[in-house]
C-alpha cells in the first residue's frame, strides 16, 4: 500500500517535470526540472527494489549529467531566445500521441508472465555476479570503459581552443 502511494506520487511528479522540460521557455528552469525528473526516477527504481541503480541514478544523472547540462546552458547562453518550439511542433505532437497510444494499447493487451513476490536481498552482489562471473558481461564492461575513455578524449578535443 505504501509502495503504491509512493509510485503514484513519483509517477505524477516525474511526468509533470518531464512535461515542464519540453514546455517551459526558460532554459535554466528546464534543466532544473530535468534534474527533478531524474531524481524521481531514482525513487521509482527504489520502489522497484533496484537499490544499486537508485544510487547510481542519483550519482550519475542527478549529479554528473545535471551539472554538465547546466554548465552547457551557461556556456551557450542565448537569453533572449529561450527555448521556443520549431515548425514541427504540431506533427511532433501528433507523432508523440500516436506513439503513446500504440505503446499503451500493446502494453495493456499483452499477457505478461509476472512474478509478483518482492525480491528481498540486495541487488548489488547479484549485479556484480552477473557482470564479473565466468560467463558474465566482462567483455561488455571492458568495452564500456574504452567507450568512456574515447568519449572523454573526444569531448576534450572538441571544446579545446585551437
Amino acid at each position, binding site marked *: 500500500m505504501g509502495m503504491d502511494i509512493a509510485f503514484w506520487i513519483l509517477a505524477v511528479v516525474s511526468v509533470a517535470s518531464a512535461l515542464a522540460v519540453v514546455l517551459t521557455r526558460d532554459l535554466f528552469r528546464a534543466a532544473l526540472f530535468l534534474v527533478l525528473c531524474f531524481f524521481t526516477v531514482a525513487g521509482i527504481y527504489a520502489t522497484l527494489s533496484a537499490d544499486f541503480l537508485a544510487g547510481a541514478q542519483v550519482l550519475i*544523472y542527478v549529479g554528473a549529467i545535471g551539472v554538465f*547540462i547546466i554548465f552547457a546552458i551557461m556556456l551557450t547562453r542565448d537569453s533572449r531566445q529561450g527555448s521556443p518550439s520549431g515548425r514541427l511542433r504540431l506533427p511532433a505532437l501528433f507523432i508523440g500521441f500516436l506513439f503513446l497510444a500504440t505503446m499503451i494499447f500493446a502494453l495493456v493487451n499483452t499477457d505478461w508472465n509476472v512474478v509478483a513476490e518482492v525480491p528481498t536481498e540486495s541487488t548489488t552482489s547479484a549485479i556484480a555476479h552477473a557482470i564479473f562471473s565466468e560467463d558474465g558481461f566482462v567483455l561488455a564492461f571492458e568495452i564500456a570503459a574504452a567507450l568512456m575513455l574515447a568519449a572523454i578524449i573526444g569531448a576534450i578535443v*572538441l*571544446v579545446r581552443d585551437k
Partner: protein
Amino acid sequence: MAVGLEHFLVLSAVLFAIGLYGVLAKRNAVVILMSIEIMLTAVNIAMVAFSRYGQFITGQVFVIFIMVVAAAEVAVGLALIIAIYRSKKTVDSEKFDLMKW
C-alpha cells in the same frame, strides 16, 4: 488496483513520448539533448520493471550499460554544441543545418 508491471511500462511509455515530442519539436540543441536523456531514462524504467517482475538481474546490468552510453553521449553531445556555439554564435538547430543535403 495494486501497482503492477503495466503501471511502470505505461509510465515509461509516457516519458518516452514526452522525450520524443521534445526531440522533434524544440529548436534549442541543449533542450533536444535533454529530451534524449528523458527518452533513455524512460527505457531504463522499462528495463528495471521487467527485471523486477521477471526476477532476472540482466535487465539491471543492461541499465548500467545504458547509463554509461548516456554519459558518453551527453559528454560528446554537449562538447559538439559548445563547439558549434563558438563558430556560429547560436544553438538553434534550424540555423545550423550545414550537414543538410
